[in-house]
C-alpha cells in the first residue's frame, strides 16, 4: 500500500492475515455471546459468514461501537459481549478507552481490526500506519488486558484467552487492508436493530423465568 505521508514516521510491518479469516476462525465462539460491530468491512464480512440475531452492526456513529458495548455489558453483567471495532473508529473515540478502563466490565472483549486505513472510502492511511499504537494507547488508558496479534494464530489465541480471562481486554488485530466487494448488505439497519433488541429481551426473560 502506498505510504506517501510517512515522512519520518515508523513504517508498520506488512500484515499477514485478513479480517475475514480472523472472523471465520472465531465465528463459532460468537454463538452465545452478544456481538456489536462497527460499520464497514467488519460488518459486511461478518454478515457474509452468517448473520445471527445476536449480532448488531452499528452502521455509522464511528467511535461508538465500544461505547455501545459498554452500555450492553453494564446492563447485562451475566452475558459476555464482544465488540469488533476498527482503527478508524477507535481513533475517533480514544477518550472512550478511558471510560472503558474506568468501569472495566469483566464481560467485555474489545477487538480492533487495525488495517491502518479507512478502507471503504478508498483506503486512506490512518495514524496507525505511521506509528500510533492502539494497544499501547489502550494499556496506557488503563484497559487491564491488551494484546496485539500479527498472525491468525496469535489472534485466535488472544481471543480465546480473553474470553476465558473474565477481564476487560482490548485485542488489536493487525490485518491486511482488504475488504468485501460491497458494503451495503441485504439486511436493513432497522430490521437488525429490532431483531437484536428482541434477542436481548428474550434471553433476559428466559433467565428471569429460570430464577
Amino acid at each position, binding site marked *: 500500500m502506498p505510504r506517501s505521508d510517512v515522512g519520518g514516521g515508523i513504517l508498520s510491518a506488512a500484515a499477514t492475515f485478513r479480517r475475514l479469516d480472523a472472523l471465520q476462525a472465531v465465528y463459532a465462539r460468537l454463538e452465545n455471546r452478544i456481538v456489536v460491530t462497527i460499520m464497514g468491512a467488519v460488518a459486511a464480512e461478518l454478515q457474509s459468514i452468517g448473520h445471527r440475531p445476536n449480532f448488531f452492526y452499528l452502521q455509522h456513529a464511528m467511535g*461508538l461501537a465500544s*461505547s455501545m458495548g459498554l*452500555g*450492553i455489558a*453494564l*446492563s447485562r453483567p451475566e452475558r459476555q459481549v464482544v465488540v469488533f471495532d476498527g482503527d478508524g473508529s477507535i481513533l475517533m473515540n480514544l*477518550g472512550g478507552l478511558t*471510560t472503558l478502563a474506568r468501569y472495566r466490565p469483566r464481560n467485555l472483549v474489545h477487538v480492533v481490526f487495525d488495517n491502518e486505513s479507512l478502507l471503504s472510502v478508498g483506503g486512506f492511511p490512518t495514524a496507525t500506519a505511521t506509528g500510533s499504537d492502539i494497544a499501547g494507547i489502550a494499556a496506557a488508558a488503563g484497559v487491564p488486558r491488551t494484546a496485539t496479534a500479527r498472525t491468525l494464530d496469535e489472534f485466535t489465541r488472544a481471543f480465546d484467552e480473553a474470553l476465558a480471562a473474565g477481564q476487560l481486554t482490548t485485542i488489536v488485530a493487525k490485518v491486511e487492508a482488504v475488504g468485501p466487494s460491497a458494503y451495503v448488505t441485504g439486511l436493513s439497519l432497522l430490521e437488525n*436493530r429490532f431483531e437484536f433488541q428482541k434477542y436481548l429481551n428474550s434471553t433476559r426473560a428466559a433467565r428471569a423465568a429460570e430464577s
Partner: protein
Amino acid sequence: MPVSTANSRLIYDALKACGVRLVSALPETWLVHLMRMAEDDPEMILVRLAKEEEGVGISAGAHLAGVQSAMLMQNHGFLASINGIVSCAQLYRIPLLMLISYRGEFGERDPWQTEGGGVTEDLLRALRIPFSYLDNPDHVARRIAKGQTLAASSNKPVALLLCRDLMWEEAF
C-alpha cells in the same frame, strides 16, 4: 455555589420514577448534585464520561439490552454529541432521554458559555428533537415523565432543558 439541591432532587426522583437505572454524565456546575445522587444510589449505574457523545452509544446499548437510561450534559456537551445523536440514536430509532443544562442564556455570567446558548434550541429544532423546558419545580416530574413517554412511543430522542430559574438559586 447556589445550585439547587431541592430541584436536583425533584429531577432525580422523576428519573427514577420513569424507570431510569443508568445515567451517563459529564460534570458541569449545574449537574453536580444530580450526579452525586446517582453516585450515592445503589439502584443507579452512573457512568462518568470523557466526552458526552459516548453517552449516546452507552444509552443505545442499554436500551437495546432492556435498561432505561438518561444522559446528563451541558448544552455544549449536546453540541459534542451531535453525530452520535444523528447517526446512532436517530438512525437506529433509540429513545434517548437527554437532560441538557441550558447555559449561555439570560443571567449567564461566564463569557465562555455565551455562544452555546444561542444555538441550542435551533439545533434541537433542526434535528427535529422534541424538547421542553424545566424552569419551575411545579412541572419537573410531569414534564420528565411526558418526555420519557414520547421517547418510548416514538423511539426517538427527546430533550429537557434544565433552565437557570430551576437550577440556580441566586436572585437573578
